[in-house]
């Protein structure tokens, strides 16, 4: 690790460690976060981090580009669009639950609902739309919900992520909780998210190159070749937890929602490019 990287890490660590005492604002956090990666990987444009590990591994990138000649999620996307446009039994549809009819809104999620005082992710909003219209909720991690979310994400392609922390309510608290989760060690391996995705980013964990957290939220739901299917962000959080020997949490639990809120804020300014395929 270079002196400069070490210095950046110390600065970030201090900023985050002292969050309660020294008031580093989310905006300052984000700037430091993005600056760390831009310095660590010079020559990579900010928006290219949306391509995850493929922005930093050329050999893998060429294989990924070859696979995307016929994107593996194409069929799922078509189904997602059809599902999105199919009305519920009561005649209403998904468009009626969302601003702008649900089109080109992914970049605003997760958002903090000041009335209910909780983080609302896109997947949660989709299911709430279903239940408020008399339909059964769908499982959160894969399947039709992921397809609908993928379709909605695709309508936002290129739009810049724009997560807002409102002045009223506990938005800031939710953000801080997400940030804390990200930097806390857990599991048998006693790893935090930051251990892999900040401190060891670009290095290998066994045979896998560790990807930057910057840009992670842009391409969800993700089609993982390993899953041979689409999965939501909370599906991935579960696997991360299992990999460090930690207990996975329920999808759409407060901890995961807050983590998603924090992570997506850190990627403010990057373009939405979901769904995308990954290894």
């Amino acid at each position, binding site marked *: 690790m270079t002196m400069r990287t070490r210095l950046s890490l110390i600065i970030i660590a201090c900023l985050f460690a002292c969050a309660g005492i020294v008031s580093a604002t989310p905006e300052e956090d984000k700037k430091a976060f993005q600056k760390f990666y831009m310095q660590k990987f010079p020559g990579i444009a900010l928006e290219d981090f949306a391509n995850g590990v493929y922005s930093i591994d050329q050999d893998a990138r060429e294989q990924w580009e070859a696979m995307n000649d016929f994107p593996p999620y194409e069929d799922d996307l078509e189904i997602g669009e059809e599902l999105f446009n199919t009305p519920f039994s009561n005649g209403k549809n998904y468009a009626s639950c969302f601003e702008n009819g649900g089109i080109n809104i992914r970049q605003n999620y997760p958002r903090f609902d000041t009335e209910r005082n909780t983080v609302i992710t896109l997947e949660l909003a989709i299911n709430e739309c279903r239940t408020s219209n008399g339909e059964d909720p769908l499982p959160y991690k894969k399947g039709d919900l992921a397809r609908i979310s993928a379709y909605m994400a695709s309508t936002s392609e290129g739009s810049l992520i724009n997560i807002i922390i409102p002045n009223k309510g506990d938005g800031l608290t939710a953000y801080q909780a997400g940030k804390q989760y990200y930097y806390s060690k857990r599991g048998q391996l006693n790893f935090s998210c930051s251990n892999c995705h900040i401190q060891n980013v670009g290095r290998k964990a066994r045979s896998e*190159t560790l990807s930057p957290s910057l840009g992670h939220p842009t391409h969800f739901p993700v089609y993982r070749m390993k899953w041979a299917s689409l999965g939501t962000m909370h599906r991935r959080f579960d696997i991360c937890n299992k990999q460090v020997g930690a207990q996975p949490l329920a999808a759409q639990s407060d901890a995961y929602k807050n983590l998603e809120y924090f992570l997506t804020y850190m990627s403010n300014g990057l373009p939405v490019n979901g769904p995308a395929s990954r290894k």
Partner: protein
Amino acid sequence: MDISRRKFLNLLTIGSTACFALMTPLTAWAAWASDAFNATKPEDAYKNLFGSTELIESDQVKLKVPKIAENGGAVPVSVKTSMKNVDSINIFVKDNPQPLTASFKIPSGTIPDISTRIRLAQTSTVTAVIKADGKLFSKSQEVKVTIGGCGG
């Protein structure tokens, strides 16, 4: 359906030509090279496919294949050349149960530049063999296949 006699006769002619075409071998290469595909060793595959094991290593065979496969079940591979009179482009994976992976016939007028995705059972050497002007030109590259670590 109202159809003129001439049209009907035309259709009949086209139809029967098509049927006849389907019944006869499509080209001189029609038969699926079962002996070559079933060979378990590269040398036997070469012998069964080409009648020879004399491969000339050549930089004119442009083989593109990754160094580390993202997914052993779908490894993108491209082979191309600027040589003339290419008869076929063939791909072998040394340590696969069936080393002969694919054989592409290049009729005249077709560009000798193909891409496909192949399976590698394990880390192995991928060899592209181009048959041109009666000779066999080859290029090989090792591809590492992993099962995946923490990102898996």
